[in-house]
């Protein structure tokens, strides 16, 4: 009986081993995350004009960005990329493009401040935020990331580690692409224009 158990165990180990090595070494086609239909989707957050839903912008190409206003470098860079890509469009095309800056720092960023911040970059970019629960839900929906980090040695007090990506939403409201925060504005322009 003991002998049988040993063989059974050995068999299981062999199968497991084969499976593990297939998983690790077997050929794999990398699947872009956005090909996963579970990423993206509608959400509701607050803007200076009240609640806004992603579905309000059906028919428009939307660029979603998760950031915060006291982000000194990466967020303004992404906003400047969006501005340039938008400004390269014709007036008619411009009206079919929308940037959505989602602040993950509602304690510091009010909807009024967010409005002034985004308008500074483009009148086609809006700023939205919500309660922590609302924000966490959208962050999860889009596979984004943020984390508050205490900075005891800095006058900032705290900062936010964050994923810095531009989510491109097609006119049907579906996630079309996930782009780097410092994508070349000409490349972003080309990607937007493809839907217009």
């Amino acid at each position: 009986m003991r002998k049988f158990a040993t063989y059974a165990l050995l068999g299981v180990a062999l199968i497991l081993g084969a499976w593990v090595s297939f998983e690790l070494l077997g050929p794999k086609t990398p699947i872009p995350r956005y090909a996963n239909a579970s990423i993206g989707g509608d959400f509701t957050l607050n803007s200076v004009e009240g609640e806004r839903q992603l579905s309000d912008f059906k028919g428009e190409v939307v660029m979603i960005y998760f950031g915060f206003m006291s982000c000194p470098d990466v967020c303004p860079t992404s906003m400047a990329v969006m501005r340039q890509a938008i400004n390269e469009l014709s007036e008619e095309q411009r009206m079919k493009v929308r940037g959505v800056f989602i602040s993950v720092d509602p304690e510091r960023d009010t909807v009024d401040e967010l409005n002034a911040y985004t308008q500074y970059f483009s009148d086609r970019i809006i700023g939205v935020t919500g309660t922590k629960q609302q924000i966490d839900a959208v962050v999860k929906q889009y596979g984004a990331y943020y984390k508050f980090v205490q900075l005891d040695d800095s006058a900032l007090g705290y900062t936010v580690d964050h994923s810095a990506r531009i989510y491109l939403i097609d006119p049907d409201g579906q996630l079309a692409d996930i782009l780097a925060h410092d994508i070349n504005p000409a490349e972003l322009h080309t990607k937007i224009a493809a839907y217009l």
Partner: protein
Amino acid sequence: MKYLPIALLLSASIVNAADISISDARARAVPPGADISAAFMNVKNNAATDLAILGADSSVAESVELHSNSMADGKMKMRRIDQIELAANSEVALQPGGLHIMLIGLRRPLVEGETIELTLNLSNNTSELLQIPVVHIEPGMKKMHH
């Protein structure tokens, strides 16, 4: 004796020889209400010895700090750093997405076209007073080649 003035001149020039040279210094113009900004530049250490930027000051901000940005696993992290090392005879770029001088608690908005003062404090006990322009930091609309 007639070489004394030249010798003095030479020694003076050695003492005053800029150990570092700065190029492409600029500060980011900020949206209304924003109380932080960042300054960027290229810093070249012309000396044969290692130097470091230990800190900076500016009248436009309550605090001026040295910060680094790093991207790991798609996550952007910014942290304060104690110094920016300047290896002998080499150049360090302070640029968007990387090392920068952070201006925290702006006393007024930084508007494109103006000039601000920024002092760099160096490890050789000298400081460098800079006048730097405030500009829109644009990533640049490079045309794609196909």
